[in-house]
């Protein structure tokens, strides 16, 4: 291994180091010097901070308060208020409206063809530029505690029409309602627009920053494009972040998301994470509980080190079945056979799921296997991250189904919560049964209708 990348970040990036850097960057220190003297005089207008620094004898320097950042925060709040006042005062007469499409966008490169939306989408009619983000515009309502940029103009609330950028400054979060299906929290330093909205699809594009999406809608109705992939909602809650290298980091909290791009797709159920690279598309899906050994082996494998497959499989446990499932239909026959061997070693495959069909990548069999894994593991997965040297606690998270939820979901279909040990006998699964859409019907329907029922959409693809 060349040490150049470790030394000065030149040369071919070492996948393991890059993976460590990415993981650890969340702990990186950001901040500016908050002069205690300036913090204590925060009541002065912000303009004073732009005046030349006064020469103050160091002997006069005082020891700051224990938490001077709190004072600084107060100062920032005051500064923000004054900035807002200045912005409002300066808006009479109003500034020339910005163009609906921001030509200076930091922006988005053309989306890959695989991300193209269906032609059935119905774009909203264009609005006059000066009303681009007013409450009367056609679009998704948004609001923020401090002014954000909508179509290039400051606004605290309004409506975001299609093809108009909404940008949050570094200190402000904005909330956006997505039709009647959910909401997006746009984090500071982010840039988002609606690509199109209609009865068959609500498609948005995030080119910078991060967001939290909570959507309750039929699968594939809500999509967020990034440069690296499209996050196709399957009814869920998730965080989406674009890092400084253009990678898309998806963390699914509940439900499931399909991350698609560059001819690849990754199925990410709740409590998993997947990163999409702008060049390679989505990578391997990893459970939140995945060990670092697995993560680092996955990073090496994704970068082309086939030798890392053995380490990856060795590090994978039953709770990493989502990784194995996503890995199964990819790669050469030799890779698939190794993955299958590990799946069987972990007793994850029911005898009724034909091995040869899985190896052949048969979609129905893969789907049946996924559903079976979901039933097998969704209620058995550790609820909190398993840290080295500690036993994973069995506490319940707010996102987990309650006994009441389970009863409600099971009622029409006679499905029972599965809590099987690896050696338990498995439910018979017809090899070609597309169980995604057809619930078990061994309970006689009471209303005379066939018991064709999908699980509630927000839990459809939970794992």
């Amino acid at each position, binding site marked *: 291994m060349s040490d150049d990348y470790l*030394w000065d970040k030149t040369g071919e990036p070492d996948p393991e180091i890059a993976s460590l850097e990415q*993981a650890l960057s969340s702990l990186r*220190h950001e*901040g500016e010097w908050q002069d205690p003297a300036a913090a204590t005089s925060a009541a002065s207008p912000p303009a004073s901070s732009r005046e030349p620094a006064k020469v103050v004898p160091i002997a006069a320097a005082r020891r700051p308060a224990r938490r*001077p950042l709190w004072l600084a925060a107060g100062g920032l709040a005051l500064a923000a208020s004054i900035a807002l006042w200045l912005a409002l005062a300066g808006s009479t007469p109003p500034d020339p409206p910005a163009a609906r499409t921001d030509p200076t966008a930091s922006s988005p490169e053309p989306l890959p063809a695989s991300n193209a939306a269906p032609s059935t989408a119905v774009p909203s009619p264009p609005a006059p530029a000066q009303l681009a983000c007013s409450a009367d515009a056609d679009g998704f309502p948004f609001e923020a505690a401090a002014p954000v940029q909508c179509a290039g103009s400051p606004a605290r609330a309004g409506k975001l029409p299609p093809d108009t950028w909404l940008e949050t400054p570094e200190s402000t979060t904005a909330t956006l309602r997505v039709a009647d299906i959910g909401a997006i929290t746009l984090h500071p330093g982010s840039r988002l627009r609606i690509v199109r909205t209609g009865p068959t699809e609500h498609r948005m594009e995030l080119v910078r920053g991060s967001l939290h999406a909570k959507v309750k809608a039929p699968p594939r109705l809500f999509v967020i494009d990034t440069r690296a992939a499209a996050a196709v909602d399957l009814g869920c809650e998730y965080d989406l972040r674009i890092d400084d290298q253009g990678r898309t980091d998806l963390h699914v909290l509940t439900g499931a998301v399909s991350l698609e791009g560059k001819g690849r797709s990754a199925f990410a159920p709740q409590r998993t994470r997947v990163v999409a690279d702008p060049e390679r598309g989505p990578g391997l899906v990893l459970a939140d509980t995945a060990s*670092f*050994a697995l993560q*680092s082996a996955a990073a*090496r494998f994704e970068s082309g080190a*086939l030798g890392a497959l053995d380490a990856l499989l060795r590090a994978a446990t039953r709770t990493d079945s989502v990784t194995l499932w996503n890995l199964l239909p990819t790669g050469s026959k030799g890779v698939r056979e190794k993955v299958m061997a590990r799946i069987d070693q972990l007793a994850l495959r029911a005898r009724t799921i034909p091995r040869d069909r899985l190896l052949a990548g048969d979609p129905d069999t893969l789907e049946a296997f996924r559903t079976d894994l979901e039933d097998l593991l969704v209620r058995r997965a550790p609820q909190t991250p398993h840290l080295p040297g500690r036993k994973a606690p069995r506490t319940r998270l707010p996102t987990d189904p309650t006994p009441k939820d389970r009863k409600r979901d099971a009622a029409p279909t006679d499905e029972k919560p599965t809590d099987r040990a690896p050696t338990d006998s498995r439910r018979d699964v017809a090899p070609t049964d597309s169980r995604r859409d057809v619930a078990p019907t061994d309970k006689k329907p009471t209303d005379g209708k066939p018991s064709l029922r999908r699980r509630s959409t927000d839990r459809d693809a939970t794992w």
Partner: protein
Amino acid sequence: MIAALPEGLVIAVQVAHRPPVVRAPDRSKDDVAALVTSVQRGERAAFGGLYSRFHRAVHAVLLARVRAEDARDLVQDVFAQALEKIADLQDPAAFPGWILSMARNRAVDHLRRARPSSEAAEPAIDPPPRVEAMEALRALRALPEAYRETLIMRLVEGMTGPEIAERTGLTPESVRVNLHRGMKLLRAQLDPEGAPADEEAP
């Protein structure tokens, strides 16, 4: 090669080995010294320049010892203390070692005052770090001090080797050795089974 030694011996070497600490002819020494001199003359704004150059190194030193949340708070404390005492600094060029030493002492003070049980749980910080970040941080903290600090500067703070040398006063050669050896130990910590790392795809 440390990695080639038996496991027990590796631990002993980790504990006993202290990488060489050699003062370096720092390329940014003059700039830093000039900033220090300016601050000593009373130009408080110049202290912002020192902060922007050293806050990550200070944070790395703190993060190597105290909880992530505490490290964030203590950075400001360390710089406030430095501002208070900078008039006493005789050699402005010694600022890098001086402030990092101050950070180490501040971390020790903090740990001494903290209740022992508080070290067990890492409290929530905002935004919450990823699980693997905390796992990697634990592995980093298990390394010998010099490797630990240097690697945190590189992997957490995103500093390059030359930057680390400038900010710590170590020679580039020492930093390179620390990074190389520390990374080997870190790999061993994270993947004890020693996955073949260099098998590239055909």
